[in-house]
């Protein structure tokens, strides 16, 4: 997890962290626009279309509005928690998102600068690589419950408190199903490392069963074909984790007003908003990583792509940059698709009732996730015989 061995590498890695954070934050306005336009599309209306072309400048207008709103603290609030909560809301999302590999690493050869020789370097297209990637991401995102509780209790309002309790209880409950559903994936790939998982999914579908190599060249070697149940469970749990419809029980105009962030306005509300989108992004990113080949291109293995890139470019560094670009695009296409699914589902499905939500989590998804784990273990054992 080192930052690098000399000043150049450290600088680049530091900049990279900032860029990834900004990328995550800046994606939010685009997603908001997408959500508003998308919901309008689904509901057969127009959506924001006045400010700028296709309403794209609406985001800017929103941002200005958020910034210029009056900053107030409710009388009964605990000021420290009230202010700290939105800040903390950003942290888990940002930290976890930085651990997601978005493309293959870029090789930089030796070069001369400021009168000395630098390099060679390998820059990962992710904030930092952690050996136990999944565990780390799960651990960090489980901290999100605190922001909910801090906001809910810190606002000094019954509705916010109830909303926070609901939201955090929901988060904890679904964390279980979420964690268990990916145990099968972990067993399948035999690693916690997200890059290794990604690379395990390159090329066409092929696996070994009882000593026979089975290849299906018409399918990509994606996790979804091995773990369909886990994919469904994981994606559903991810919805609950990010408090999105159909699981947005933390909010409720009739009974809880706006949930834990009722008392927040202006930019503080915006930060919660970014936090929520951060969760969606992590969920989509993990979905792509676990089940849809990560940044790899379907049917094409990384080695083949490297070969091709080497044939069209002059240096190894440029080739790796080209490959990284292609991979980055591939990742983003898949990523965008799942972000769209999040929006799509939100505007399509009705809400659950809270008891139904808990029943679903504890009595349906948890047993299925357990069953999936056990069956996967057996199948892997039998296949390895």
């Amino acid at each position, binding site marked *: 997890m080192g930052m690098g061995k000399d000043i150049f590498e450290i600088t680049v890695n530091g900049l990279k962290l900032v860029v990834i954070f900004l990328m995550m934050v800046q994606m939010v306005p685009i997603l908001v626009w997408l959500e508003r336009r998308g919901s309008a599309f689904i509901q057969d209306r127009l959506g924001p279309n006045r400010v700028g072309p296709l309403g794209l400048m609406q985001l800017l207008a929103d941002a200005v509005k958020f910034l210029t709103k009056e900053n107030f603290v409710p009388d009964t609030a605990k000021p420290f*928690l009230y202010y700290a909560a939105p800040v903390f809301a950003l942290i888990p999302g940002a930290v976890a998102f930085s651990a997601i590999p978005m493309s293959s690493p870029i090789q930089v050869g030796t070069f001369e600068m400021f009168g000395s020789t630098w390099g060679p370097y390998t820059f990962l297209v992710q904030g930092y690589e952690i050996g136990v990637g999944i565990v780390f991401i799960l651990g960090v995102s489980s*901290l999100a419950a605190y922001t909910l509780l801090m906001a809910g209790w810190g606002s000094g309002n019954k509705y916010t408190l109830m909303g*926070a309790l609901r939201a955090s209880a929901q988060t904890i409950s679904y*964390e279980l199903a979420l964690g268990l559903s990916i145990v099968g994936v972990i067993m399948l790939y035999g690693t916690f490392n997200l890059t290794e998982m990604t690379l395990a999914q390159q090329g066409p579908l092929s696996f070994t069963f009882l000593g026979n190599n089975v290849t299906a060249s018409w399918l990509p070697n994606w996790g979804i074909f091995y773990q369909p149940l886990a994919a469904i469970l994981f994606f559903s749990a991810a919805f609950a984790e990010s408090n999105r419809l159909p699981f947005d029980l933390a909010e409720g105009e009739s009974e809880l007003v706006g949930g834990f962030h009722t008392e927040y306005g202006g930019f503080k509300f915006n930060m919660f908003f970014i936090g929520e989108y951060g969760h969606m992004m992590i969920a989509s990113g993990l979905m792509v990583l676990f089940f849809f080949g990560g940044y790899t291109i379907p049917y094409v293995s990384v080695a083949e792509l490297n070969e091709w890139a080497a044939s069209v470019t002059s240096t190894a560094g440029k080739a790796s940059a080209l490959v990284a670009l292609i991979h980055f695009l591939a990742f983003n296409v898949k990523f965008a698709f799942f972000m769209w699914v999040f929006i799509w589902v939100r505007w399509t499905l009705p809400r659950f009732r809270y008891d139904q939500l808990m029943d679903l989590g504890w009595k349906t998804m948890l047993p299925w996730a357990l069953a999936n784990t056990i069956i996967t273990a057996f199948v892997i054992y039998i296949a390895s015989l």
Partner: protein
Amino acid sequence: MTADAFLFWFLAFVTLASGLSVILMSNPIYSALCLAMTMVGISALFVTLNAFFIAGVQLIVYAGAVMVLFTMVIMLFDLKKDVQAFTKGKFTGAVKIASVGLLAGLVVGAIAMSVSLMGEKTTDNPVMVGTGMETTKALGNILFSKYIFGFEALGVLLLVIAVGAVALARSKGGTHEH
């Protein structure tokens, strides 16, 4: 000062400060949040000790579940600042603090003694220097072979606890019958 040393002192400061706050804050909510902070700090300390998986589990179990539970319960009770946060009795209080202080001194002394006896011997275990995956595999191996009995026993314990906690929480409450 190397980065490792800096990290250790920083984390030591964070954990000690937040740990002290746990027992000094008169509002239990802040105590709980400080404890969560301590947990995160200890998790980071685990990372400096190359125990990546344990660090992740520490985050998920302690910081993500146990402490959230504490916070939720406290918030549910809506406990205000404790009127009398500390025990009464100057004498017993003095005895308690004294014994705690003595214990601290003794433990630190014992550590210093024993470490100087033992020497700073660091054994290199190839399993434990990797990125975490090898350690985790080795962990799984000994957990399900050498420590299988403890593992199973804990499974039973958890079942009992789950039943017991539900039974306790569902009862009318109180230590006496109404």
